[in-house]
């Protein structure tokens, strides 16, 4: 198991521990503790965008053909997309390993 040693010094940490650059949460990869992933069945998908609307992490984006796909760097496998999909086109599949 990795040891969680310091990544910043107390003399170099920002004032008040503020984050001084906006929009940096995109740099924080949060999808690595997912237990399930959404898999989209393109046969059933009608490109309605409900998954994109409901995703709490804005992990979904449209590909060139207009289908929606979740970014696995940010998807936490919550399953809201699968629950909301009006065509049951999304199924949650267990992550291996």
């Amino acid at each position: 198991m990795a040891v969680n040693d310091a990544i910043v010094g107390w003399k170099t940490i920002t004032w008040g521990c503020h984050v001084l650059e906006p929009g940096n949460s995109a740099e924080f990869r949060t999808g690595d503790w997912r237990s399930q992933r959404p898999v989209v069945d393109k046969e059933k998908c009608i490109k309605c965008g409900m998954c994109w609307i409901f995703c709490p992490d804005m992990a979904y984006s449209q590909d060139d053909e207009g289908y929606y796909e979740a970014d696995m760097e940010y998807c936490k496998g919550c399953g809201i997309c699968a629950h909301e999909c009006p065509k049951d086109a999304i199924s949650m599949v267990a992550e291996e390993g």
Partner: protein
Amino acid sequence: MAKRVGVEVSIAIAEAVKLAKAEVIPAYPITPQTHIVEHLSEVVANGELDAEFIPVESEHAAMSACCGSSAAGARTFTSSSSQGLSLMSEVLYIPPAMRLPIVNVVANRAMSAPISIWNDHQDIMVQRDIGWIQTFAENGQEAVDLTLHAFRVAEDRRVSLPIIVNIDGFTLSHVIEPIELPDQEDVDAYIPPFKPKYKLDPRKPITMGPVGIPEVYTEAKMLQDQVIKNSKKVILKAWKEFAEQFGREYNPVETYRTEDAEIMLVTMGSISETAMTAVDKMRDAGKSVGLVRIRLWRPFPGPEFRKAAGKAKVLAVIDRTLPPGALCGPVGAELRSLFYKIPGSPKIFSFVAGLGGRDVTVARFEEIVEKATGYAKKRPKELYEVIGVREK
């Protein structure tokens, strides 16, 4: 010229907040702090003070609103007591870590149960480790002066920490005393406009209070500890400048007749005035007794206390709270740590007195000195003793 007038201490504190030109006051009334926020709501309503008075739904909301307004760059004041201060507790830890210089006057009161609206220090001692600078006032004039001092120190960029000014409930808050309220020009000269290093501004967005992952949290807390420790320099300098501006001198630790005193009483807050009377009486009777009073509780002024009391043979430390199951009260424990294994340091005996409004009289101080004198010869079984407690 500032005039000395007879005024209730709570009203005088509110007037000091007005003189300091607080801009946002989120507050919830609670006995015995009520008159402070009541008077502030009046001076805001009648246009004497150009501030936003937010009548919040609870103390938790009061401190939350304080964080928001201070983060947005407004000079922020609130006041609380006892159960109300405890209801704030969850939020109280946040402003020091986020460097938000809120000023909070706490009218010290006992905690339930049994229900008590009367004075002791339990409410603030359970908040000992919230990370705020904390001072204790002895009388009404000092309560006013420490409030002004608090704004000056809190907003200094080298500090940028919140401050609690402790005043004893009723014995200070509700007493009418002759108090000198300084002139506006002098206060303006002493407290410059609030210019925060960072503030919440949509034109220049920053994040305050992000998640501190295990790889960061220890360093954030270490820095916080260093910042409050380093604040002492600014606290002392601001007191020095206060003396120059207003003619009243304040130190982190005060002494009374301690020259060559073998036994020193150690107090915080308003009981110190009674203690001085007791010291006079015991000195008249030929006893070698003095008084040491702690004004600055956090950051704890260790070197100053050692200098003030280190030559005593015995320290009789009075705590105004009884922490159940602890070895002794927090002030006693602090001083035992300070002097631990230092050769020639005083013997320390800890006493609990004045709980829930029980008077600490001259006779009680005499009793404490007598007991401490006895314990210096024969060590007591317990590390503290409750004074004036009835058994049957």
